[in-house]
């Protein structure tokens, strides 16, 4: 298993920038998700890592070996990086067994050893009974498993997954997620997982890189992304809740600073002395009739066990959980506590740079 390093990687397609100044290190054996809306550059980053495209500038390293950059370029077939495609890319003219055996065949592994290793990979992905089938005879989930087995059989230095669940239905997604994390536990492979689904990213990854317009906005563990988003984009893209602008009051309460949010004094955690916004997760809102801050219910949906309320307070839309149903238009009182305050670089003259957690 190998460590993946990116230094100042940029990629332009016909002059249009797709990636700008990517700096990141993915540790050996780590499961990293690249999360972002479509067109954010996450697939481009994956293809650069695999070697299907060359970066316009910057350097990509696999352990100590430079695989792209400074006039060097290692072809994809020489990188020993496995990839699972969104379309699975199973070869339709080869059986399941032949698909999985192909990487070993290319490497000249003797027939007997090949058989054993393919059988092992098929067993690991629960495909033992399907070796003789052709890809066209398999269901979507089974094809996905074949693609995974094919990429693991040659013990690659890293495994890349390009939106592997995008073509599967909801029930299958859940079970395939389990397959992936089981897989990661068993093999300890370095895995990079591209997705636009934050649920998948937060559930599977050790760390998530949130990308937008060709840049990594924040690269951190899922719970950190949720509790301590770096900017408005991450706060809005990851997790439920609201992003509201805030003003400094100059007061502190214990470890926390006190900010003016929606006209109320609210206790906030922060890493910056000059916050511009706060991220208010549903957990930070407590509904009570006696509370000073008043809001109007604009929507109420049942999530199973609790209700999700959209609240209109002073022109901002907040999200809260409630144990009982609320009527639309009903007025409620609420208190806000323990929010995360951050400095959003896009909302001011850039005094400080973008905070980097990479």
């Amino acid at each position: 298993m190998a460590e993946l390093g990116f230094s100042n990687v940029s990629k332009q397609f016909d002059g249009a920038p797709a990636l700008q100044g990517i700096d990141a290190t993915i540790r050996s054996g780590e499961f990293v998700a690249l999360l972002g809306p479509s067109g954010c550059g996450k697939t481009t980053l994956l293809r650069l890592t695999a070697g299907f495209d060359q970066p316009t500038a910057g350097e990509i390293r696999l352990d100590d070996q430079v695989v792209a950059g400074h006039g060097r370029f290692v072809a994809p077939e020489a990188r020993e990086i496995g990839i699972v495609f969104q379309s699975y890319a199973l070869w339709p003219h080869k059986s399941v067994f032949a698909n999985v055996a192909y990487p070993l065949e290319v490497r000249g592994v003797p027939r007997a050893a090949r058989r054993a290793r393919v059988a092992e990979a098929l067993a690991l992905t629960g495909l033992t009974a399907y070796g003789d089938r052709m890809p066209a005879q398999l269901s979507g989930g089974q094809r996905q498993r074949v693609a995974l087995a094919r990429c693991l059989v040659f013990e690659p230095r890293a495994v890349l997954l390009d939106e592997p669940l995008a073509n599967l239905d909801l029930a299958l997604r859940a079970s395939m997620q389990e397959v992936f994390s089981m897989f990661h536990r068993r093999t300890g492979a370095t895995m990079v997982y591209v997705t636009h689904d934050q649920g998948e990213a937060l559930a599977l990854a050790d760390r998530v890189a949130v990308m937008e317009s060709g840049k990594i906005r924040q690269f951190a563990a899922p719970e950190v992304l949720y509790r301590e988003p770096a900017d408005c984009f991450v706060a809005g893209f990851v997790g439920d809740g609201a992003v509201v602008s805030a003003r400094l009051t100059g007061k502190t309460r214990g470890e926390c600073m006190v900010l003016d949010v929606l006209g109320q004094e609210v206790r906030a955690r922060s890493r910056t002395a000059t916050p511009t916004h706060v991220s208010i997760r549903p957990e930070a809102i407590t509904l009570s009739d006696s509370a000073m801050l008043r809001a109007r219910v604009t929507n109420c949906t049942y999530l199973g066990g609790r209700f999700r309320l959209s609240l209109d307070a002073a022109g901002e839309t907040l999200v809260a959980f409630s144990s009982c149903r609320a009527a639309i238009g009903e007025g409620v009182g609420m208190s806000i506590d323990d929010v995360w305050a951050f400095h959003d670089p896009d909302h001011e003259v850039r005094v400080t740079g973008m905070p980097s957690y990479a």
Partner: protein
Amino acid sequence: MSVASTRHGGSRSLDRLLPFVLLPVALVALGPVTRLLLEGVGFGDGFTTTHLSTVLSRPSTGTALKHSLVTAGGGTLLSILIGGAFAFLVALTNIRGKAALVFCLMIPMMIPPQITALAWMQMAGPSSTLLKILGLAPPLGSPQPLHSAGGIILLLGIQHASLVFLTLRAGLRMIPADLVEAARMSGAGSLRVWAQIVLPLSMPSLIAGGAMAFVTALGNFGIPAMLGIPAQYDTLPTLIYQRLVGMGPSVLPEVAVLALLIGVVAIIGVLFGRYVLARRGFGLAGLSAQPLSLLLGKARLPVEIALWVFIFVILALPLTALLATSLLPAYGVALTLESATFEAWREVLLHQPVTRRAYGNSLFLALSAAAILLVISLPLAWLMERRGSWASRALDALIDLPYALPGVVLSIACILTFLNLPFTDLTLYGTIWIILMAYLARFFVVMLRPIQASIAQLDPAMEEAAASVGAGLGRRLRDIVLPLAAPSAAAGAILVFLTAVNELTVSALLWSSGTETLGVVIYNLEDSGETVMASALAMSIVLLIVLLMGLVQAGAKQFPKGVIPWQS
């Protein structure tokens, strides 16, 4: 871009070597045509326009040009009528048995023109076996009605109707069904919809198909050779043929001018067709989900009967006449159950050294051309689809030229190029290799396009997946691209074989004793009065062609759209 690799240097160097495939391909495919252009301006003996002015001022040139334009023009009009009627009826209405109808309409396109001419001659005229059986034959000594401009026009029109049909049908399929539905909702009946909506929208396709038919008719040699030469009615291709056969290579500079003349007219036709097609877009949106279907109502059965009767007249009747003649013991004898014999068949297929040699030569040429083109086209098509460069795009645009240009033009170009191999004293003229070179140039595009289509449809992730598991370029081409493109490649190879095995126009000018092809021998047999043997040989070829077409048709579902020419 500097590229350095740590391992697998082999695959990277293959990646760099592959573009060099372009060079020999460009030389073989485009070299001769370029050489011909140079000849026109007097390459070799200084730049001069002497030949140009001598040949162009000769009256025979003007007459032949006029004849060419008249027959090709008349044939085109007929093709537009036949092909247009079939295309509108098949694509727009609810007639039954469309697939069979289309297959039958395509057969004349695949049958070599000299066989078509031979078959029709057996149907009309004083010696027609069929007419004799029916007692309708005109008295001996009366002229063969097909030996005339009208006969040439008739057969050219039938032969190339399928070109108009295919182009027009492709255009009709791009008309969204809702345009027609909107017209019907406005109260227009079937006929009005056709005349005021469908016809104007499909006019560019119709014109482009007509342009293609014109260019092909212009280059047709078999039909004017069989029907025109006996009546001293010369078109440009037959004039070139007679000059060259009569005088030998010494008249090359002259016939080169004639070839250029016909080439110029053809290119104008090709460019006109492309121009009209490119301007076709009224902003029509792709394939409509639902095919247009105008209900014919009570007229359906009569229309179906009319179409099948027409097919019977242009296809079954001439072929029956050909078959009948091939069963005669001697030409002119009446055919009865007692007199029918397979003697001519036996003679042609088993005994005559010339026909056996011709079978051998044609099979060898067709197989070699198909095999060589197959081997070159796969990497070439991959290169064009996956590693586009200005060079590959230029080749892509020009490679149609040797196929679109009339066969005589390419033949003259090949003679000029290979008479003295550049930088050596060797000559290919008079050997079978010059025919092979000409076939390679001419049929390249027939092989390349189907493979290109199938590689274009191939998900690039298939190859990337192979690269990521460690397969270098050579292995990827062999293990992934080749098997997946194989069905189309097979179809392309069969098409090349089919076209090459009964080719006449090119080989008529390039053959010499010992290198006769089937097309040449049929023409020579008929020319020397051996009509019965010519018919038997022709009939055996028709059977071979229909068999091969059926083979391709049987595998139709395996091929990407557009691979089979009679199933656009």
